């Protein structure tokens, strides 16, 4: 198998979707044959900040993350991109940290840092040797409350983000298709708005937008500290008392309530034609519950369903479309289960040879219909479950992935206990549970299907102007 082709990037994405699973999954494979590391400890500071500590003593290294319970889906209408923009601006400095020095301080201490924004959460993280944990806790706590922004650096950073949008979306037709598909899928809920924001709205964002978003959402009682690595809970607690505990809580933080998505009366279809498309590709998304929004057991069943149906080379979709019928160059699918308000079932297929894309879609629908009609088998379910439990063990080799699993769950309203009960809950999933969620959520009315089709290339040519020697 070629594992970095676009289609199989879908597998990679399925791997990413699997991360999502892990995010909701547990560290300890409790009843399995393998015991993986000690369990996480969690507690709350007096100002409401949650703390999770995951000891991993193998190397003298720690991963330190602060998660805020805010993401792009919390933005006010017309200000799309502000959550992500603020995330960039958080590196611009405070009274104590000069502009642009945050990452340099981490690096000068042998550490690495970064941050990311999603629809529901924003996280900042550093990987450092254990003796530098007090330092990163001090400066991360400092910027929770003391951000300083000057007009000029805000505008320069806005240009950076516009370049980021060009790199990630505008230069890549399949990203554009995905953006369009998400926008079409959500009729009311803000998950339809891209995390990076719409270009025309990003272009209007300014310093005061950033600061008001910051003061509204960045507070200890809206944050989770996750530390994984060569520490124990007592050490982290002592350090947190000296740093994060000193930050004042924000009494106005409330539970997040976004516009609700109505039941859809019709499925959506769209086609994007682009000379840069390469091969014709098909994507489909269905709205489904997430771990945070599902009835008990449903999200676990959806994980199993998508693993059996479409994730990996042993899935029904890959075997049927790629191996047997040869209609697709690659085919994959995933369950995105980490959202606060809802999740998605996704499929992506790269058309093979000259097969008409409509035939490929029909073949995919046959696979889906067969599962709805006849269900999955016990053997398939057992194999899917074993694969996910094994994934969990593999992911416990990485303290960053451990930290993400807990952070993501806590940021979307789930508990440490829920994370750690995941393997047990996975074990309870029955064939009938899987069949039931298949019948319920493979509903075309709640879906959006997109085609990306290559058109004749006119603009792309290689200018034969290679020049050697001095000019």
């Amino acid at each position, binding site marked *: 198998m070629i594992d970095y082709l676009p289609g199989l990037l879908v597998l990679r994405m399925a791997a990413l979707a699997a991360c999502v699973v892990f995010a909701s999954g547990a560290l300890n494979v409790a009843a399995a044959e393998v015991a993986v590391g000690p369990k996480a400890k969690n507690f709350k500071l007096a100002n409401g900040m949650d703390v999770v500590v995951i000891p991993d003593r193998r*190397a003298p290294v720690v991963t330190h993350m602060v998660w805020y319970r805010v993401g792009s889906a919390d933005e006010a209408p017309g200000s799309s991109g502000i959550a992500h923009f603020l995330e960039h601006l958080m590196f611009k400095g405070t009274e104590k940290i000069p502009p642009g020095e945050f*990452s340099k301080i981490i690096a000068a201490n042998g550490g690495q840092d970064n941050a990311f924004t999603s629809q529901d959460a924003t996280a900042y993280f550093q990987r450092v040797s254990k003796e530098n944990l007090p330092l990163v806790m001090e400066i991360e706590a400092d910027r929770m409350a003391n951000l300083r922004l000057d007009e000029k650096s805000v505008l*320069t950073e806005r240009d950076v983000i516009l370049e980021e949008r060009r790199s990630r979306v505008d230069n890549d037709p399949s990203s554009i298709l995905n953006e369009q598909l998400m926008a079409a899928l959500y009729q009311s809920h803000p998950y339809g708005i891209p995390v990076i924001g719409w270009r025309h709205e990003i272009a209007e964002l300014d310093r005061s937008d950033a600061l008001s978003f910051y003061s509204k959402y960045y507070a200890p009682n809206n944050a989770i500290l996750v530390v994984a690595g060569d520490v124990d809970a007592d050490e982290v607690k002592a350090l947190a008392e000296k740093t994060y505990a000193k930050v004042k809580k924000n009494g106005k933080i409330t539970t997040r309530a976004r516009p609700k998505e109505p039941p859809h009366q019709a499925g959506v279809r769209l086609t994007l034609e682009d000379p840069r498309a390469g091969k014709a590709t098909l994507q489909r998304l269905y709205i489904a519950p997430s771990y945070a929004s599902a009835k008990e057991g449903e999200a676990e069943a959806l994980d199993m369903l998508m693993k059996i149906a479409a994730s990996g080379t042993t899935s029904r979709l890959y075997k049927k479309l790629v191996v047997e019928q040869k209609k697709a160059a690659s085919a994959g699918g995933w369950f995105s289960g980490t959202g606060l308000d809802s999740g998605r079932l996704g499929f992506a297929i790269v058309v*093979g040879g000259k097969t008409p894309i409509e035939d490929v879609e029909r073949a995919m629908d046959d696979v889906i219909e067969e599962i709805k009609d006849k269900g999955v088998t016990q053997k398939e379910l057992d194999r899917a479950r*074993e694969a996910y439990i094994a994934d969990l063990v593999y992911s416990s*080799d990485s*303290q960053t992935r451990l930290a993400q699993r807990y952070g993501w769950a806590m940021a979307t309203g789930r508990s440490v206990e829920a994370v750690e009960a995941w393997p047990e809950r996975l074990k309870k999933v029955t064939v009938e549970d899987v069949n039931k969620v298949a019948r319920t959520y493979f509903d075309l009315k709640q879906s959006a299907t997109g085609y990306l089709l290559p058109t004749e290339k006119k603009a792309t040519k290689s200018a034969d102007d*290679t*020049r050697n020697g001095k000019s």
Partner: protein
Amino acid sequence: MSALVTPRHHAGIGRVRRALSYWVRNSTLALAIVALTAALSPANAMKIQVVTSPGGITAWLVEAHEVPLIAMRFAFEGGSVQDPKDKNGVAYFVSGMLDEGAGELNSVAFQERLEETATRMNFDATRDVFIGNFQTLTKNAGESFELLRLALNEPRFDQDAVDRIRQQILAGLEFDSNDPENVAAREWYKLAFADHPYALPVKGTKETVGAIGADNLKSYAKRVFARDTLKVAVVGDIDAETLAKVLDEVFGGLPESGDLTSVPEAKPPVGPQEKLVEMNIPQSVAQFGHSAFKRDDDDFIASYMLNYILGGGGFSSRLMEEVREKRGLAYSVYSYVHPYERAAIYAGNVATKSDAIGTSLDVIRGEIGRMAESGPSKEELQKAKQYLTGSYALRFDTNSKIASQLIWIQLQNLGLDYIDKRNDLINAVSLDDVKRVAKRLLKADGLIITIVGKPESSPKKPVRG
């Protein structure tokens, strides 16, 4: 190991979900390159055992029993440079075929066995070497290693699977041909290495991949998978005695020696050379660079440190400071040094809206020139040392990362004690050394530059006509 270092650009759908759910502040690419090209040093006292099997196969082993996992990494000499003439892409094709059926198991059966045993197995071809990555859970180790043995010793290369993987590679090439970073890199290697096999893309081209048959794949496997060039690193829940047996089981059946074509040294890439590939996209992408020092050059470590300060150190680098932080011209700008076996390169990448790509390149050229002229400051060098020595431990915090470090050290012949020496080597580099190396390495007027996009203004050195 080089392809692990060569930035991999995912086209097509791959970007979709990353774009969707995950906006990372700084593309981690540059950091990944730092981590992989690195010269290394100690951090964390870790016992490396050299295990030699009864059959004479040697592996480096770090026992780690905390997690019930075993990670193995191995490499054979001979990556895409061993592709037959006109069959460019064979090594890469083989890397996609080894889990597509072996022994009595056809593709589907083999992959089901992999899944049932939770075996992780993938292969990769770089320009210089063919690499295997393998992980298993301790409880399944016996069966997993047997699958690995089959994959290496008895790959089937069934026509059906060959056709399927060919289709996947061709689809990938199609996406790559529309991905500006990928096109910029391909064109850059063509200019840099002219007639040498390094000029050819590891994945091959539409034409060459179309012409590759099962016999080419079989013959590559036979020529390259041999014990004389094999390097193995193992980390995890296994002891030396067990590993010795495993080594013979998995690799003992391979031929004693391979049948490699001799590949000459490459001429060091020199510029100025410039090429524009027009593509109708809103943001243009450029790759720039020239020759650098090979791993056995006495100045390699100093050149690596110099690059950290210039373009490898993320937000601590001058390129990031000048292009992104001060001017907002790009989201991602970085450079790296990469030693291949038969040449070495200094190279970098930037993406800027089309009407300002010329400005970005002017700024980059200016920074390269300034660095060549006066070198870094004392403070910059000190901070580089602090980062490079302090972050070394971060490369050793998972089993698979340790295995990856160990195989790299073996491939570069750096020696068993390298991990212990590495930070001292970094600390021993003086400001004068780096200044001298800056002059020796960097040629602002000798860059090979490829630009993909629709630049509306030309840089000072016009790229067109």
